[in-house]
């Protein structure tokens, strides 16, 4: 078989973007059916919204790469999977904190550019989220990370079933 170049290197990109997309879609599916979603989004400028999504995408790609670092994840070895699962908790939490910091920075920059007079309340908000929000965001990020890590492992099991040889099938 001809080996496609960079197939293994694709893994953090695939998983990181999967996590970001699922998270974005889950938020949409939770918030839109409740009603009033247009007014909520209308309070956020389009550029700020794009910047926030790009920040989430970037931090998720970074933390997913770190969670997979040094693992032969595709082998689906139980010991490696246990390490991966622990890392999804830790790096999920870090992702939550990084995203919150990016969110704060984007909103602060937006406030600075659109209404320089409102910088004081923005700074107070930033100080508040820095002190309290980082702890909460670590916990939320860790829970989301573990949930998505479980989805990743389930997807890998399906993928291995789709590519199982007759020899490995008899061992299963």
């Amino acid at each position: 078989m001809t080996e496609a170049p960079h197939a293994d290197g694709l893994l953090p990109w695939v998983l990181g973007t999967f996590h970001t997309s699922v998270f974005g879609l889950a938020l949409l599916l939770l918030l839109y059916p409740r009603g009033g979603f247009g007014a909520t989004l209308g309070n956020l400028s389009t550029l700020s919204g794009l910047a926030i999504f790009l920040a989430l995408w970037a931090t998720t790609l970074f933390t997913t790469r770190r969670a997979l670092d040094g693992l032969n994840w595709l082998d689906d070895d139980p010991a490696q999977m246990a390490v991966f699962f622990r890392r999804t908790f830790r790096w999920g939490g870090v992702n939550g904190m990084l995203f919150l910091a990016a969110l704060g920075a984007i909103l602060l920059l937006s406030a600075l550019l659109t209404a320089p007079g409102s910088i004081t309340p923005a700074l107070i908000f930033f100080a508040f989220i820095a002190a309290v929000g980082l702890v909460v965001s670590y916990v939320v990020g860790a829970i989301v990370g573990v949930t998505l890590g479980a989805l990743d492992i389930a997807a890998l099991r399906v993928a291995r079933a789709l590519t199982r040889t007759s020899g490995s099938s008899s061992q299963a």
Partner: protein
Amino acid sequence: MAGITPADHHALTLAIRWLHVAAMAVAFGGAFLVAWLSWRARDSVIETAVRYEQVFWAAAGVLVMTGIGNLGAFGASLLEPSTGWGTTLIAKLWLVAALIVVSLPRSLAVVLTASEARTRPVDLRRVYTLTTSMFAAIVALAIVLANA
């Protein structure tokens, strides 16, 4: 942000819509191409499939990002979920979520096929025909939303 006029906002909205449609064209067209190639010459398609997976996930991220941006552009005039338009939008969002979820094992199976000589190659015909069919249904719902 600072100094954005209504004309700038309109241009930005158009740019986001263009990006959304372009990303969909790339993802849908690419899936159709890989499906078509796999029905013609199954063994030599795996490299193309790996390349497609790289592009697919870029398009998926852009589609979710610009999709939220498109909804934000409506602002307070965004129709509520209780309307016919809203019901169609929810159906489209669920279908997109289903496509994203079934795409992860597809991508992993393609990576496994490309990187491990001992594995049985994934049935590219089946997985890419399914992907193309789901994209076709999503595009149909998008057209319904755009014409409503």
